[in-house]
């Protein structure tokens, strides 16, 4: 039996950090010294990628007030930053193996009558094999990117 918890740390456009987890129902859970409240969400999509090729992730919330607030504070979830950690728990609800953490940037949101979808794309976390081993500067790549769409100049 594997118990899985997602720790979602979302920084919205107004620099407010929202922390939620989806395993400990009706309770808070502490991870890395920070308290995460319960929220009924699920994460779907790629959780990790080696070459930073814009993996997409969808975080699904019920269409309720606090989830709407997350979208609005992130300017339609276009200016949000997400740190998503997936951890595995033992029967005592302790984290057993090193958790997996990935970073994403918001690219929008979608609504239905029951659900609210926050869409994310992977933040740059590594560089493809064809890319020359040079240091990123604004002179080289223009405004420093939030994702892996790079253009050499």
């Amino acid at each position, binding site marked *: *039996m*594997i*118990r*899985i918890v997602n720790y979602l740390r979302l920084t919205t456009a107004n620099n407010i950090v929202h922390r939620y987890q*989806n395993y*400990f*129902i*009706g*309770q808070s859970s502490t991870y890395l010294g920070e308290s995460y409240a319960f929220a009924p969400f699920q994460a779907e999509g790629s959780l990790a990628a080696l070459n930073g090729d814009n993996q997409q992730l969808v975080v699904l919330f019920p269409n309720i007030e606090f989830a709407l607030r997350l979208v609005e504070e992130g300017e339609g979830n276009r200016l949000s930053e997400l740190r998503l950690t997936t951890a595995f728990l033992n029967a005592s609800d302790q984290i057993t193996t090193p958790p997996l953490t990935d970073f994403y940037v918001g690219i929008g949101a979608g609504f239905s009558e029951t659900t609210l979808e926050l869409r994310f794309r992977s933040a740059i976390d590594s560089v493809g094999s064809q890319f020359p081993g040079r240091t990123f500067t604004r002179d080289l790549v223009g405004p420093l990117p939030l994702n892996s769409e790079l253009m050499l100049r």
Partner: protein
Amino acid sequence: MSIPFPGIKPSARSFKQGTFPTKVYRALSGATVKRNFGNRAYGFELQLEYRNIPDTTTSQILKHYNDTSGGFERFSLSSELFAGMSTELRGYAESTATIRWEYAAPPDVSSVAPGNRSTVQVTLVGELL
């Protein structure tokens, strides 16, 4: 506002414990790995049967169904519904700290005898708060 279910002792009662949110991965070999996504049970089920009750009592149940918008609003259960159970067992059945109840289906009313007597069957589900 939560409107408690009428405190009427049922003639018969059936209770099913909730399940935990689990998915099973089964490999081609047949070996399985279970994945658990929450630490509390959900989907409790309570079936109540009221035999040969007068119309006034039937009306109480139907009124409650309407007042809770037919399953939209959740509610708590009064202890009369668990009459005969030990306190310990009732604790499992009620799970008041973690769940609230709602109608799984509209109450089923059967007229069984002249003189305004009916048999009413009610099915409730307990979901996480």
